[in-house]
């Protein structure tokens, strides 16, 4: 099963590689990983998406907690939660017809065109993973030059939270 795991850790050099190294050393897979400092600059928040049986995910959470730099871990699969991912897509629009069609698709998916050149449109889109997949799929008939995805971030709904 797919699990979104949120991790609060000390914002220190090497902390990220401890997490990444743990996954490779123990043979766990990382589907996506995103990290940035929080409102408290001494802490980083990392969202990691992985797949595994309940036993494996339980072990992953325990091993993460064991890392000295990790302050707290939350398996969002245990909670009602929100998940979002951001994407940039650069599409070739050499033909006039393409301009119109790409603009229309972007609107349908509630994307924003954030950069334009005479040959390209760059679209920004936020949503859950399946929405992003669907958008890339919808653009299949056009010339996709680049796709940049942030990886998922997640947060629990309501009162549940991950904080120090």
């Amino acid at each position, binding site marked *: 099963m797919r699990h979104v795991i949120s991790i609060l850790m*000390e914002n220190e050099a090497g902390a990220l590689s401890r997490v990444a190294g743990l996954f490779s050393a123990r043979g766990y897979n990382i589907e996506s990983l995103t990290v940035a400092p929080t409102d408290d600059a001494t802490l980083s928040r990392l969202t990691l998406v992985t797949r595994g049986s309940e036993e494996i995910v*339980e072990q992953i959470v*325990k091993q993460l907690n*064991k890392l*000295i730099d990790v302050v707290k871990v939350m398996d969002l699969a245990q909670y009602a939660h929100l998940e979002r991912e951001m994407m940039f897509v650069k599409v070739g629009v050499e033909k006039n017809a393409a301009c119109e069609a790409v603009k229309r698709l972007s609107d349908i998916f509630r994307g924003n065109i954030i950069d334009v050149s005479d040959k390209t449109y760059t679209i920004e889109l936020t949503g859950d993973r399946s929405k992003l997949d669907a958008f890339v799929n919808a653009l299949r008939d056009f010339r996709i030059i680049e796709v940049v995805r942030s990886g998922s971030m997640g947060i629990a709904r309501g009162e549940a939270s991950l904080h120090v």
Partner: protein
Amino acid sequence: MELTGAEIFVECLKEEGVDTIFGYPGGAVLFLYDELYKQHDKINHILVRHEQGAVHAAEGYAKATNRPGVALVTSGPGATNAVTGIADAYMDSVPMVVFTGQVPRHLIGNDAFQEVDIVGITRPCVKHNFLVTDVKDLATTIKKAFYIASTGRPGPVLVDIPKDITTARCEFHYPKEITMRSYNPTVKGNKRQVRRAIDLMLEAQKPVLYTGGGVVLSGAAHELTELTRELGFPITNTLMGLGGFPSMDKQFIGMLGMHGTYEANNAMHHADLVIAIGARFDDRVTGNIEKFCPYAKIIHVDIDPASISKNVKVDVPIVGDVKNVIVDMLEEFRSRNERPDAEALVAWWKQIDEWRKADCLKYNQDVNAAIKAQYVVEKFWEVTNGDAYVCSDVGQHQMWAAQYYRFSQPNRWINSGGLGTMGFGLPAAMGVQMAFPEETVGCITGDGSIQMCIQELATCLQYHLPIKILSLNNGYLGMVRQWQEFFYQKRYAMSYMEALPDFVKLAEAYGHVGMRIEKVSDVEGALKEALAMKDRLVFMDFITERENNVFPMVPAGAGQNEMILV
């Protein structure tokens, strides 16, 4: 007053009560060594002959004393040579702090002379590591290093110190206490879980205690003995747990696992309750996990939550320091009116005594035949009254030492269990002998293992370490050969030791006493003679039966009760 980084380093060691460190100098640590030179009356530095030796010696020191061992090595090759010992300490949860020199900060990442990213290299095999980037952080970092190494599940912590930090200055203040928001090991077991555990113990018909290195590390041997006696249950120890319970006690059914006793492995297999304390269900213990303890409920006490339900699903997990939990168990048990089912226990012991009749550790020593390794170990146990510190290397001799030296106290059996590091024995023995200069320290080794850190014989001379080396020489890498005999149709690929040195002359060349023992009738006399030389290292090269095997044996992939007996 402002101190240099090097001065701060030594002050911190003193604050931590460190009296002995093991190390080897080099460019990046010259200022640290200069300061150690000035304060040599405060801290005893042991100069090893290879950095691997320094780290194993620190491990030996730590395993015998339960206090953190300390090693100091230079950058680059000094640091990489230490990696094996660090990984070894990680696998066996040995409290240890390793200081490595690093190139000056402005050269880091520059491929400078003797530069290596040791923090990166050791990340998967340390409990934690630090690169010090500001002299102001040095004291706090060292405090954290000792705190992390010695609390919770102990382990090695590495502190990498760039050379320019050792000359930079700042005010010195050593924190008395340290708290870390990200590190708070659970040391008290959950009371409700302890009650549940006692409930199961009172219901059990065929219980067995299975205890490991955690008992030794936690200093809980006394409490474990009390609990075991009050319960009246059989007890087995893992390789790392030997000495945690007196092995001459009638409730002790021997070591379990791949080379465990027939009674211990059968008791585990047929048990309806397994009480695992400070043990981690290692693959060498469980054998085929699918066939492991098919009838048992399992209670697991461990300080590391990640050890629980990692390999085997547990019914009652208890996270906490082993000693605290055993004390709570005793208290809970004594508060109950019920007692374990006496009738069931009588029947269970009867069954165990049946298994004992297999006498699985029996061997025949014909006086006129070649010396059996088992005989040497058993004689060593006799002549030392079971009281020596016994270090070992890795292989057949290690298993024989574990089987035939009956430990009655914790911290006396010093071996490389998890990583299985050949070359561990001699340097570890140095660490033990440094910690206990007056005690008998034996190093049971083989002709393969001893050559992996043989250079430390020079260290032993320099510091007058009267270690007694028992080389069980069979001219083979015995354990490899045994596997090849059983599972590779006797194709002995590279498991022989042609061109062995003359160990007697070698010992003498290093300034020690060498003995070669070839006859059964000479074994006891040689041991006694060696032990009488209180102030000399004696290298006893026992020429033993060449193709001798360790039994019982659970072959890889088999269940615990599927043992080869002879």
